[in-house]
């Protein structure tokens, strides 16, 4: 029985490799490089960036602005891709309606009302060059990030110079929850063989 346990230790090594691969790959995985899909709007008051996403769950949105601006992130465009996979989400997101709604607003309050009337949740961030926020939902098809320069009465927009959306499709917590039990199982399976291999190695070294 012991001999079989030692022989089967390779399975333990394989299981350990799987757990290590999950841990290492999670640490090194690519950030979600969803750039801006639609950013050449030239409205009078607000700059908006519309980013559509397929099925993701959590967004860590980072906005770095060329100058200090107020950030308005308007989230919750229903995920149409799940319901109508034939139709590209770009077609379903009514860009012109969003742009029109944003273009006609002159204050943050108006913008908030306009977006909420379009069934979008508005999230406000403070004034600054750098904004970061997270949002979690299972039913997101897209995200709208609007910026406004608070220094002017009728603010001309400044583009968000960089909007990075990191959709965490392999959340670290899940990676840890998955890999720790696998690692433990691997260690249990490989222990006998590891001891055996180390002993053999030491014998070789002694010789």
């Amino acid at each position, binding site marked *: 029985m012991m001999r079989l346990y030692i022989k089967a230790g*390779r399975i333990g090594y394989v299981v350990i490799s799987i757990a290590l*691969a999950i841990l290492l*790959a999670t640490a090194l995985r*690519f950030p979600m490089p969803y750039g801006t899909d639609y950013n050449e709007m030239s409205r009078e008051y607000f700059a908006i960036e519309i980013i559509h996403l*397929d099925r993701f769950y959590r967004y860590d949105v980072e906005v770095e602005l060329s100058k200090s601006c107020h950030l308005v992130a308007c989230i919750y465009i229903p995920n149409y891709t799940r319901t109508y*996979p034939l139709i590209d989400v770009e077609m379903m997101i009514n860009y012109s309606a969003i742009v029109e709604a944003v273009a006609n607003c002159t204050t943050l309050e108006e913008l908030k009302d306009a977006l909420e009337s379009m069934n979008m949740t508005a999230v406000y961030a403070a004034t600054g060059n750098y904004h970061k926020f997270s949002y979690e939902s299972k039913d997101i098809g897209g995200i709208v990030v609007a910026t406004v320069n608070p220094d002017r009465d009728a603010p001309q927009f400044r583009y968000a110079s960089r909007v990075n959306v990191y959709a965490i*499709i392999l959340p670290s917590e899940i990676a840890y929850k998955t890999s720790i039990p696998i690692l433990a199982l691997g260690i249990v399976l490989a222990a006998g063989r590891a001891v055996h291999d180390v002993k053999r190695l030491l014998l070789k070294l002694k010789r």
Partner: protein
Amino acid sequence: MGRRYSRLRADLNILEISLSSSYRFPLLEGLAFLYLFFPIVFAPLIRAPYVCQFVSYAFGLPVFLTQILILVNLAYSVASEIESGLTQTYITYPVKRADFILIKILVGLGVPITLLALAEAIVTYMAFSVVGFSLDELFFSILASLGQLVMFALVFLTISLLIKKGGLALGISIALWFILSIAISIFSLFVYFSGIKEFFYLSALLNPTNIVNAYYAKGSSVLPGGIVVEPTFTEMVLVLLGHYAINIVLLAIIIAYFMRRFEP
């Protein structure tokens, strides 16, 4: 009883020798690592809202590598062993020919395919657990992604048994792999441009990923003229069963050939 025991021991011995000669340390461990590492690292770049699409896109490279591994394994552990006379020695052991070929299939095909299926299941579970997915979608997607791999592997095994020379079997298998892949692609193109739904099902018998995609990613399979292929669950299962039936027939032919006709 004693006879059965000795046969089992002989089987286990052959299994152990085959495993250790085909997968020297740390080949299997490295393979397991790579199978999970790359799909997880690149997963955030993949835009695939459905499990079936995710499995196809994320595991394209691992499936290709597995195919190569199986190809090399079969050429060297089957054809080269026949060439060097090792197979002849093995089958003089108290071991059945069917057992012997099944062990070779288990080591050459079974191990890498199991590892790949395990990697697909783990990565897909991690990627979709927050969004939600159904187990049947995962099961059928994995089954579909492995189907063609198994089919090609059985063709490689047939070639190794017929050619009986490692290098030559490897060369012919690679050539046949390209020919089969091109033929299936041309057939798929023909199916697409013909716009006939029945041909779609026929091509799915060779590449069942298509039908699983068409079923789960509803509306994603559109033929020219706007003909949407929307198979029912029963049709999808039947096509998958049909595909695996072809594989089982191939396997049965190989075992029957090895038991009755094969001369080392």
